[in-house]
């Protein structure tokens, strides 16, 4: 049994998600990601099950493990109760822990995702916060969101929300004591350390590429090589 496989097996999601894959390919047939990307969850589960260290290392450094949308459609249909989606989550976790994620275009996106989503959680207590969801960065949100963004306080007031207000309600200001508890949870459970690790890896990669952090962030946010696509 190899080292990477041992590390993977420490993850409860792998313990739950990998039973005995029979390589039938049902997961690939049902997978929304497999239609869009050159992606085959059957093959990934097979590699992990094979315990082939070299192949697992290639996976951890590849774009492949970042194609999944974690919809978990594969879980319902697997005739052997495997969960390819959970196996992917454990591979991603290890790829981040070992710093391999920064090697691939899709993996590198973790830099931006971690920065933005964790900031929202720690600063506001929400994963998504409307004042940080701008029309310019999300033009598909439509002209109606462009309008809402301009009148956010008024729209929330009209619709019974409580944007940044005291007490309960939609998008209330979560009290500082509760945000402090979230920070404490992040510190104790390894999320803060992960944020720092991902941040450092991003800064190092930007320097290697000779980019400023602004240029690096822009590249990570917008780049998608057509080689990823099925068509």
């Amino acid at each position, binding site marked *: 049994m190899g080292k990477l496989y041992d590390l993977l097996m420490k993850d409860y*999601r792998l*313990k739950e998600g990998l039973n005995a894959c029979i390589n039938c390919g049902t997961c690939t047939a049902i997978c929304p*990601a497999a*239609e*869009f*990307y050159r992606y085959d969850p059957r093959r990934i589960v097979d590699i992990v099950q094979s315990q082939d260290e070299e192949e697992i290392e290639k996976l951890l450094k590849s774009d492949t493990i*970042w194609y999944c*949308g974690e*919809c*978990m*459609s594969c*879980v*319902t249909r697997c005739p052997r109760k495997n*969960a390819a989606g959970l196996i992917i989550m454990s591979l*991603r976790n290890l790829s981040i822990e070992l710093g391999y994620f920064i090697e691939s275009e899709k993996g590198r*996106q973790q830099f931006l*995702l971690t920065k*933005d*989503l964790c900031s929202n*959680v720690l600063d506001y207590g*929400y*994963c*998504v916060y*409307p004042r940080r969801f701008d029309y310019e960065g999300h033009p*598909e949100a439509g*002209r*109606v969101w*462009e*309008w*809402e963004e*301009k009148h956010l306080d*008024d*729209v*929330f*007031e*009209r*619709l*019974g*929300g409580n944007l940044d207000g005291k007490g309960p*309600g*939609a*998008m209330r200001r*979560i*009290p500082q004591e509760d*945000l402090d*508890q*979230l920070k404490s*949870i*992040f510190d*104790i*459970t390894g*999320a803060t350390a*992960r*944020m720092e690790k991902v941040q450092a890896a991003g800064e190092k990669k930007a320097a290697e590429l000779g980019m400023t952090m602004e240029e690096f962030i822009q590249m*990570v*946010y*917008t*780049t*998608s090589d057509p080689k990823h*696509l099925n068509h």
Partner: protein
Amino acid sequence: MIYEGKQKIWSDYQKDIPDDHYFYVRSCIRQSFFPASEATFLDITRNRLGKDIFETEHHTTCGGIAYHSDTIPQETVMTIIARQFALMAKNGYENYVCSCITSFGLYCETMETWREFPELEAKIRENLWKSCKLEFVKPKFLIHASDLIYKYRNQIAAQAVRKLVNVHTGEPLKVVEHIGCHYSKMFPSKGVGGAEYPYVLVGMIEAWGGEIVDYPERRHCCGFGFRQYFIKGNRGYSLSNTHKKFESMEPFKPDLIITNCPGCPYFLDRWQYVIAESTGKTYGQDGHGIPALTYEEVAGLVMGYDPWDLGLQTHQVGVEPLLDKMGVEYDPAKKYLGKGGKDLGMPFPCSCLK
């Protein structure tokens, strides 16, 4: 759809849903994009049906979106969840109802993992005490908010002022139901009706007079995919999946889509706008789209709420054709007004989508 077969499946997947006394937890996405839906849920349950639904300002995100974007460890999200459960107990409740499907799926996964691996539950119990000085407790009943509206569907029908019926033809409206993936794809027994043919929204449609559309890609994901939407370069994934669903449902000419997930009504609405503006293709009648509503918005329409109080003006796909079919009276001049009639202007018109 072979109805008898579905009834057999539905009878195999029933769950206990207590009638009253819930600790309510909000959704990050629904608060941001559909605040009126959560307000309507609370108004219907508390004020129309007289139920005890408690909310505290101290609850937070469950961390589900950050977790499914692989930005925080499993132990982190489990400890945040344990904190939410502890707040429930601290306020004297044992029934937990959440507004978010991502949260619901994650709560189910967390509870199952704790059951299977008691040493992990012990670790989370310790984490919770160290970080928050709160006592670890698990809910007696874990329910999604759509489960509760399903439970009350006949009481809502009894208070209805209109049905999901075309008032001009007398025919039932054709309704697509779209269930969020994390409602029951991971744990079919946790959803009303299971994973393949969930009954939770079908039950509402039936009780309120509509007709269910059965189409090939009924169970296909809307395409959110967490990182596949948040990163701009990945959004083709999200758009492609929504496009696949609309191409599949188009021949059945749906009047309406009803959803129970935070992200799905956003994506099924906004990607219609993108498809229309970029290709000229629309899926409704005469250049209109197909309205994609939350179950609270549909319940509100049936119960006679004003469509602008329900927040239907914040959908990019115009809802007026649906309102006209249902015979809902509305004032177009009030659509984009703020509280007290404040003039907020109006959105820039779309070039293609009506």
